């Protein structure tokens, strides 16, 4: 199946430590993705972005000097961009717009804007009932999810460390990765790293870097006349489960499962059809839960499944082939870069880290504290 919409351009802005503003990085991401597609700003009539300002998409439209017929600034953390793909596909199919740019950029490392405790507006229940306890946000939620998961299924921190170890192996093949050239990680490196919020150490946590990216979408029909091999949007799904630390009954069962099931059903595929998976690895546990949600293994079996090189370069189930948020780039709201890497894999542009013959890719974003979950299934146009 197909939605009739394709991704025709993809690019990163500068990554790492840039000393540039958000709007400069956004401009880089968008113009590079358009150039990749062989299009210009004059072709753009749809903008989806977040994390720019209170009026994110409006801000970009103003900054770029365009008057879009469709925008979306849904704030859903790192999964927003997978949600944007769904919304953009619908808007293009409905004729509200023809060319959509989905983008994100942040300078959080240069600007030192990341806070361990997070931000809660004073009028939401969490400000009265959660923030006074001094939990780390989002880290402590993922830590408790990891604790629940390990307890439930008898897994170990050593097994969970494989997520970070495999991500580093991929990053060593990606010259754009923040940890490129920094050597392999061992189990001892991960477990012996600074404990932050048990059972998660600093090495279980994603990077804090600048960076971002953009993708360009248009109808599949038009895509076939453009310069790149189109990447079809085959399916999508999402779940929104919680803002609080307490709403979800079982921390070991995230909303990701429903999002993935919907996406697979829409695309008419099963887990066995997935050649490469890009999932938001904000923390090692996030990726482990996503592997399970993607159906790559049965519930409770993720930590056994990933041992033995399964998800590393050359493994049977390549995961986070750019090195992920753990070793490549994590500008916060990382989800747009999942799409960029999935597109490049399906076009066969990934050099040393290319998954041979990849035809179906999944991008799965997670936002907040396992709050929002959105999946996109992409396919190489045959």
């Amino acid at each position, binding site marked *: 199946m197909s939605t009739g919409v394709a991704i025709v351009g993809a690019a990163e802005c500068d990554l790492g430590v840039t000393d540039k503003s958000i709007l400069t990085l956004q401009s880089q991401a968008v113009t590079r993705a358009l150039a990749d597609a062989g299009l210009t700003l004059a072709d753009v009539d749809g903008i989806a972005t977040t994390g720019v300002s209170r009026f994110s998409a409006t801000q970009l439209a103003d900054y770029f000097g365009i008057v879009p017929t469709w925008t979306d600034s849904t704030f859903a953390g790192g999964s927003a961009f997978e949600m944007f793909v769904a919304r953009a596909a619908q808007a293009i199919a409905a004729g509200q717009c023809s060319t959509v740019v989905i983008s994100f950029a942040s300078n959080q490392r240069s600007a030192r804007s990341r*806070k*361990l*405790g*997070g931000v809660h507006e*004073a*009028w939401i*229940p969490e*400000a*009265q*009932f*959660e*923030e*006074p*306890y*001094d*939990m*780390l*946000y989002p880290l*402590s939620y993922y*830590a*408790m*999810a990891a*604790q*629940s998961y390990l*307890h439930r299924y008898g897994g170990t921190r050593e097994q969970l460390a494989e997520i970070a170890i495999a991500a580093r192996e991929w990053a060593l093949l990606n010259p754009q990765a923040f940890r490129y050239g920094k050597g392999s990680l061992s189990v001892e490196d991960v477990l012996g790293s*600074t*404990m*932050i*919020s*048990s*059972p*998660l150490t600093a090495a279980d946590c994603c990077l804090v870097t600048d960076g971002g990216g953009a993708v360009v979408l248009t109808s599949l029909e038009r895509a076939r006349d453009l310069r790149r091999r189109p990447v079809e949007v085959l399916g999508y799904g999402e779940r929104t489960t919680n803002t*609080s*630390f*307490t709403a979800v*009954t079982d*921390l070991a069962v995230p909303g990701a499962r429903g999002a993935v099931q919907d996406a697979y059903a829409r695309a008419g595929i099963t887990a066995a059809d997935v050649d490469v998976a890009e999932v938001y690895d904000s923390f090692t546990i996030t990726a482990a839960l996503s592997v399970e949600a993607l159906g790559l293994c049965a519930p409770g079996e993720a930590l056994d499944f990933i041992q033995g090189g399964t998800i590393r370069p050359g493994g049977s189930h390549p995961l986070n082939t750019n090195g992920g948020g753990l070793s490549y780039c994590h500008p916060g709201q990382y989800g747009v870069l999942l799409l960029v890497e999935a597109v490049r894999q399906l076009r066969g542009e990934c050099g040393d880290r290319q998954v041979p013959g990849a035809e179906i890719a999944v991008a799965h974003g997670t936002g907040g504290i396992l709050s929002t979950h959105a999946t996109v299934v992409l396919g190489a146009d045959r």
Partner: protein
Amino acid sequence: MILDHVPGPDENSAAFWAATAEHRLTVQSCTSCGHVQHPPRALCTGCGSMDHLAQVDVAGTGVVDSFTVIHRGPRPDVEVPYTIARVRLSEGPVLLTQLVGADPEGWSIDAPVSVAWADLPDGRALPVFTPSPDQTKEH
């Protein structure tokens, strides 16, 4: 814990906070459908009613649903380590809280706990949890 600037009660949380001044732990209960929920809201997530909610006393007992020991605090002046937990009350609702009164590293999932109180300067109190009295030795 942040004890000196916990946001003030609003119309939905006033009864909860008033009870804490007497060291009584309460949850919101719906007299129409029987649903219990926390934190307090303007409507019942069971039946949608805005007219049947009241704070009712709970036993103040529960179990640790999950926990994490914080080794790097969110603010420079926070003393570490300390233990954050989700506690599942005997009546069902889950609270975010701190576990106190025992070695921060010594907790386990499913450990029975009882409410204790951290008094706020404005007369209210924050519920925290300690090992249940009859479990202290095994903890």
